[in-house]
């Protein structure tokens, strides 16, 4: 049986909704008179779904949506909208409400909408439980020389790290910066062999050369090879390119004031700063980036339900 918390300051509307939903024996209905009352009840015991009016005293529906989304992300919220509250409804949907039903269509649409949202929510809960049971994630990618693929790859790695609760949000951003630098190096300096000295100019010659080379051999057929191994202890990401390699020890120290004007080495400096460890192979075309678990983050525990 799914529990539904009905939130409305109007006793008439609460009775109306109750009458429509009580026919469904699979629903256990709870009631609250405004957002503050609803939040107190949710904190006591989280329902499977919240169905709320928008305009209410104490705490309105918009604030309730934002609070539930933040504190109880797996509890979906459906809005009941009245004429005149459309703008507020758009804001609530942007804040994370799952769906909405205009009050004048409650009798025809409410039951179906609740059923659909509950089914989707159930799948999300199961998915969340499944991801919480993950022990290790291993995958390998072979990327074309297309910068558009790099952002999604980084997001994918960050999501797997989040499933294994390796880091907090801030640390995840640091890992993202380091990976972006390493992948950009593999693409532009490794496979396309574009010299970072060109970046010191203020024109687009660096990017133009990259564009030209991405269409001709031998650069065109080169790939970025990414191995991802994430466990409950660390993330190990190995990024290789098919370029000639380089000697990282010959890069200028970008923290030396004399080298502030030089673009070379800034990316690797950020990689070293934000990862626990980075190391290059002898040829200099494969870099391994390692990030250990944040001491404050515990491994995920399997949820009971």
């Amino acid at each position, binding site marked *: 049986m799914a529990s539904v918390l009905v939130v409305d300051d109007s006793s008439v509307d609460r009775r109306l909704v109750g009458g429509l939903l009580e026919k469904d024996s699979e629903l256990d209905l709870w009631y609250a008179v405004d957002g503050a009352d609803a939040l107190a009840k949710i904190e006591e015991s989280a329902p499977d779904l919240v169905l709320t009016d928008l305009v209410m005293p104490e705490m309105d529906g918009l604030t309730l949506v934002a609070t539930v989304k933040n504190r109880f992300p797996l509890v979906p919220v459906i809005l009941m909208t009245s004429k005149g509250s459309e703008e507020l409804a758009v804001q609530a949907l942007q804040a994370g409400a799952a769906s909405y039903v205009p009050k004048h269509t409650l009798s025809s649409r409410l039951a179906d909408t609740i059923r659909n949202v509950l089914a989707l929510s159930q799948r999300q809960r199961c998915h969340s439980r499944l991801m919480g049971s993950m022990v290790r994630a291993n995958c390998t990618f072979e990327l074309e020389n297309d910068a558009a693929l790099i952002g999604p790859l980084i997001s994918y790695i960050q999501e797997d790290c989040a499933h294994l609760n390796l880091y907090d949000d801030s640390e995840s951003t640091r890992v993202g910066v380091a990976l*972006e630098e390493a992948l950009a190096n593999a693409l532009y300096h490794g496979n396309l062999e574009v010299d970072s000295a060109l970046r010191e100019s203020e024109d*687009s010659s660096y990017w133009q050369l990259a564009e030209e080379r991405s269409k001709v051999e031998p650069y065109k057929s080169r790939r970025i090879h990414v191995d991802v191994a994430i466990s409950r202890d660390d993330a190990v990401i190995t990024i290789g390119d098919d370029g000639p390699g380089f000697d990282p020890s010959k890069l200028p120290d970008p*923290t030396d004031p004399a080298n502030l004007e030089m*673009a070379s080495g800034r*990316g690797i*400096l950020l990689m070293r*700063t934000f990862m626990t460890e980075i190391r290059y192979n002898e040829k200099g075309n494969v870099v391994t980036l390692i990030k250990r678990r944040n001491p404050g983050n515990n491994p995920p525990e399997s949820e009971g339900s």
Partner: protein
Amino acid sequence: MSTPKVLEFISDGSTLVVVPLGRVGSLAGEGVIAQLEELTKRLGASGLKHVVFDFEKVDYFGSSMLGAMHAVWKHVSTADGKMAVCNVSEVEREVLQVSRFDTLWPIYASRQEAVAAVSE
């Protein structure tokens, strides 16, 4: 390769406020460079001497953005102007500190403070 708009420019007295939008990591370099020319033209316009980079709308940036900021700073310093940075996240502050650029461009909590400081 596309070049989406990644910087917004706002004039405030003698200061040009540059607001990076969306992704300005190391993959956005092309978009940043494409707008650098417009930025330097605005700097040449009468009365605009100082620059404030306001990072309110982004959570991080990388080496590409540092390179672009350095290019802007060369214009600003040549014209005896000042440059500052504001509204940085924890990670952005670290990027500036580790690259030592915080020694060139002071970091302020708000745009108002930064604009006031460079205009002194």
